[in-house]
């Protein structure tokens, strides 16, 4: 097996029931991200070069040195009978030109693949879709596509890129899911409605509570209705 040239792997979750609903999936976390979200649940995965360090306690991903791809593939392969698929997340997996090679190997194990992206790399996303290397794409949105996005992402963001990624997925016949990170200290009800309009026609939209407050100190908001913002999997698709 040729393991040279695979993307840098910063973490492995050997099984998850939540990263791809309806499937038991392993989750491979690639190192490196082009955003700097203040509420990032895995800040150790953001630097392109993995640093050493201690466990951050944010949900199981162990920071530090990269994991040898061979070990990861071994672990996934040995469990392939119990797994339905593998989710490749990050960081931002689409930063890596070698992502298709990793997906190809995982596909060769007889497993389905999903990529979790922040949507900032539409060209890489298009290439993946055209090469038919993913069975599902999950795109995370953090704010309506306006100036607020850069606040939520902690850095300047090419909104056009995210917009193109959204359109790509909406127009693609394959499976997709939009995950909306809901931080009541950042987003108003109107923001959420605007996001709903952005992804109108989506097959599936999941509301995801922010792991940590984006803007510490700002009071939370009441979006009205009985649901609040707490639960995942509340469908905005019809909104």
């Amino acid at each position, binding site marked *: 097996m040729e393991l040279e040239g695979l993307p840098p792997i910063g*973490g*492995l*979750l*050997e*099984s*998850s*029931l*939540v990263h791809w*609903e*309806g*499937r*038991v999936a392993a989750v491979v976390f690639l190192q490196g991200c082009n955003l700097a979200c203040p509420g990032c649940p895995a800040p150790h995965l953001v630097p392109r070069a993995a640093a050493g360090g201690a*466990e951050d306690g944010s*949900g*199981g*991903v*162990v920071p*530090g*040195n*990269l*994991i*040898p791809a061979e*070990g*990861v593939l071994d*672990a996934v392969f040995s*469990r392939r*009978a*119990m*797994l*339905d698929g593998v989710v490749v997340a990050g960081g931002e997996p689409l930063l890596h030109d070698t992502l298709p090679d990793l997906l190809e190997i995982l596909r060769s194990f007889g497993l389905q693949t999903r990529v979790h992206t922040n949507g900032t790399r539409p060209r890489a996303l298009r290439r993946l879709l055209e090469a038919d290397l993913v069975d599902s794409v999950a795109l995370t949105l953090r704010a309506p596509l306006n100036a607020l996005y850069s606040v939520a992402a902690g850095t300047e963001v090419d909104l056009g890129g995210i917009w193109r990624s959204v359109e790509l997925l909406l127009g693609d016949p394959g499976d997709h899911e939009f995950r909306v990170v809901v931080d009541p200290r950042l987003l108003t009800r109107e923001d959420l409605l605007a996001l709903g309009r952005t992804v109108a026609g989506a097959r599936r939209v999941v509301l995801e509570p922010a792991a940590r407050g984006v803007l510490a100190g700002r009071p939370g908001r009441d979006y009205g209705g009985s649901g609040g913002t707490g639960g*995942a*999997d509340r469908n905005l698709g019809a909104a």
Partner: protein
Amino acid sequence: MVRGVEERLGRARVRRIQAPLLSSLVDAELLEGGFLGEPRRRSGALVPRDAIEAALSPRSRPGAALPPEVAARRLGGEVLRAHALAEVFPEDVATAHLEGALHVHGLARPAALFALTLSLDALKVEGVPGAGGRTPSRAAEDLRRFLAQVGRASRTLRGYATHGVGVPAANLLLAPLLPGNGSEVPPAPDLREEAWHLLFEAASDPAGSAAAMGTDLDLLAEVPACLAPVPALGPGGRRTGESLGDQAARSLALARAVVAVRASGEGLPPRATLPGLNIVVGRAALGDPRSRELLREALEAALRGTPIRLALERDGIPRPGSLLLRDPEEDAGRCAADGGMRPFCAQRVTLNLPRAAFRCPPGDLAGFLRECDRLVDLAVAAHGARRSLLATVAAGEGGALAPLFVRSRRAGGPPPADLASGSWSVGIIGLNEAVSHLLGEEFHESDGAVKVGARVLSYLGLKVREAGAALDLRVHLDASTSGRASERFARLDREEHRREQEDATAGRGHYTEGAALRPDAPADLLLRLEREGRLHGHLRTAVFRLDPSAEPGVSEEGLLVALEKAFLHTGIHQISFEPGAGAPGRAVARAASSVARVGDGARVGDGARDGDGARDGDGGGD
């Protein structure tokens, strides 16, 4: 005898006692006087002073009121326990029990059985069994009255079982009593009303009487092929002209109603007293959208905190009282027999596997198996002794077990059950720690440890069968989940084998139940399912515990997928969803080159219990 009981009460300073609750003290006197069983020695059974004091002190908090009936029952239990050890069991068995090499369950009620099943079809035909030779009540003519009879019968039977009473195929056998024919599914509100009555009637006594231990309702998620052609019995036990297979839609709808009502809890007795719900899942149920709907709803209830168990039946035979009494060889024939499905397990003796291991140096697997041989021989000798006692108390229409084993003259026909048809259980505790001592690795740490564990279980399985056959007893190997036995073993081992225990338990000082992975081991759900599944294959009953709250963000759909994986790719027998009970690893990640795992999941102990009828899942009554 009366004076004897009075003196016991006087010594215990119990001033008031309700008449029915005198029974355990009277039993004690009977046993002591030689009227029950055939005591070999006539000697008073001495109850240690601290046991009496413990029996008479409230266990919840100091100074709390202890109801006289509870005090009397505990005291009676202590006397019976002492008597049984002195007179009923061979001396080497009693010594092994007292030293904590094994645990004989149900000593406080030696004349009771371990687990029983209540056959709804038999109840339809025969009415409620009459206790102590009294005539049974008539078969009910409508569902509501029948449910009241179910309540009465399960209360009666609970008095005869120390561990639990199971009601097999409850939804399927109740379905023919619903109004209309098999193809008519009553409206959901009507079904919920009946479900409420079923749960209410099957609930145990919150006051903690002898019948406080619960009833388990088995709900079938499909109609198994072996039951489909069985004639459906309607009101009064008469054949409806339809088969159980015709009841599939109603049966499923009723199961969904039971789950919904149990999850809502509205108007029901306290949660702890409600019957356990065991959903029996076969291959067909996983492929049927309507059955999947039931499973989804049950899992959703589990996520919201309702304790639910799933029994995974891969061969299409619903084990009668599946969670208590599986018998792979006999169930197939029994389940198709009219009025069948009422087997029982007479006694369980649990082996302290860590102790057996600690008596050998690390690496000495052969020595460990020799220790196990000795323990199995003792356990089976205990079964033989208990059988002699039960045979005596079962005899005749006035015998204590007459409603179970003797048909009253009025009812005629064969007896409801046959003592010889019962099974006997040898339970195990702490296989993980035993293997850890022998191999230096726990189940979650290496595949090799699981292989050794499987080898031990396979050896023990054969050994218990052989030893049982020599006494003409059907003995099975089970995973014991008795928190009390586990806690007792660990406490006694601390005295004799402190160093070995600390090493094998990484300083925790307590043992894992049955053949499970350590609850707080850093192992994720798949690893647990896969490894425990390989061990379940060697056991008659074993439970995989899953705390849904330890899987943050998981939905019922996610749990359903996990269930499918467990069914198709592992040998797991049962999955018990127990909110707050433990945390089979959640997010488990691999660190770079060290491939170290981090997990969380501190698990509360194994549910220590007080032996007064409180249940800890599958725990024993003693």
